[in-house]
């Protein structure tokens, strides 16, 4: 009796995983390269806003606010790699082809971003201002930069005030 219940649970669990993975890959597969470019640019724009917000809030001493912004980035980080289907270099994208040539490194960079954002969120939650400021100081270079430096053509000059 117990064993059959376990078997059913495992089978159902397995089915759920298969469906979930299937849906996720269908979702990505459905996306055209152009759509992927548009979606990831939206995601990166949101990250830029969150990072800008985190810096402003750190300066203002609003650590709870920093934690919220950092959490947004940590959640967004999980969405990065599926938005880079092979060869999605259509239109106005700053992605470099090296992304697909060095995919494991690219994945590691996205993971690094997720971990750094999580670290910033968790540190900000402890209300330790000094430790949070120390992370904020290096975050741009270490979290965003680990991907942007090798895998992105620097954005068009003519930088404007955000």
């Amino acid at each position: 009796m117990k064993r059959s219940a376990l078997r059913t649970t495992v089978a159902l669990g397995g089915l759920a995983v298969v469906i979930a993975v299937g849906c996720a890959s269908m979702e990505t597969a459905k996306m055209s390269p152009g759509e992927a470019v548009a979606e990831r640019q939206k995601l990166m724009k949101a990250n830029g806003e969150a990072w800008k917000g985190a810096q402003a809030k750190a300066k203002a001493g609003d650590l709870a606010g920093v934690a919220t912004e950092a959490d947004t980035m940590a959640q967004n980080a999980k969405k990065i790699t599926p938005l880079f289907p092979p060869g999605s270099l259509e239109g106005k994208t700053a992605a470099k082809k090296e992304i697909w040539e060095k995919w494991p490194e690219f994945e590691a960079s996205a993971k690094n971003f997720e971990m750094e954002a999580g670290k910033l969120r968790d540190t900000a939650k402890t209300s330790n201002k000094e430790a949070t400021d120390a992370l904020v100081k290096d975050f741009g270079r270490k979290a965003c930069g680990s991907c942007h430096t090798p895998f992105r053509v620097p954005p068009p000059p003519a930088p404007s005030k955000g």
Partner: protein
Amino acid sequence: MTSRQTVSLLALLTLAVGAVIGLLALPVGGAAPTPAEITRGKYVFGATGGCGCHTESGNPPKPPNSGGRKYEGPFGTVYSSNITPDAKTGIGNWTDEQIITATRLGRRPNGERLVPVHPYTVFNGMAAEDLRVLVSFLRTVPPVNRPTPPKKLVPLFESIALPAWLAAFAPRENPPAAAPTTGAARGEYLVRAVAHCGECHSPRTLTQATDNSRFLGGNAKGPEGAAMPNITPDPETGIGKWSEEEIAEYLGSGNKPDGDVAGGLMAEVIEGTLAGYKDLTKADRLAIAKFLKTVPPVKNRVEQPKK
């Protein structure tokens, strides 16, 4: 000979041997630098962007200063030199003066000219004291035995084209008696000579010399094929809308006012290797910002090249 005389003789011999060993241990070129001089040298090293051209990028990164980074141009192909203190493949056997001569005049100890990918016409504007401490720091970096791949230059480049270009076209910075210490003058010194911003950010003339009439006006075809932003104070195509505080923040952290971060070669020089722009003091970063605000604005929208 009495035993006392023997002891004295032995003591003298020990002293003499000790002195010889001591002299040999000194770096070629003079007295050992103090820790403060080495620290100052590291600061200058950071202000150049960590002499980043001399470290090959990659994952994992190659040892700092061990050279081998490839540069291609109308002149042919060259590789940055190993500038670690390795005696065989680096600059371990060069005197301080020889290293300084190569840095600012572009001449090797054997008289050969360096290809000006190494921007000696700009480094010529560095103060003597800054070059001296920079050399002291370079000698403290771990030596790496890594031969620099041979250069492949187009015919007659070294014998005719380069000397002619240097004489006729290359603008040259001139060294101040001492490095300015504050304000826009300090910023100008750092921008022009040490951080060599114009090498990437100034457009180039037909002869590939930097076009200083459009100083820092951006270069669509910059080093390694990358487009280099216009960093003059033009509000539409340059960084006129950035405040001095924002420019200083960017140089120290890579963070832009709009939430983006530095990428590409700029990220490399901000991060540096053993030190970079990020290690500049806030006062120096603000001095750079102050100077950048005084540069004549150039209207030049730099477009990204096609991938």
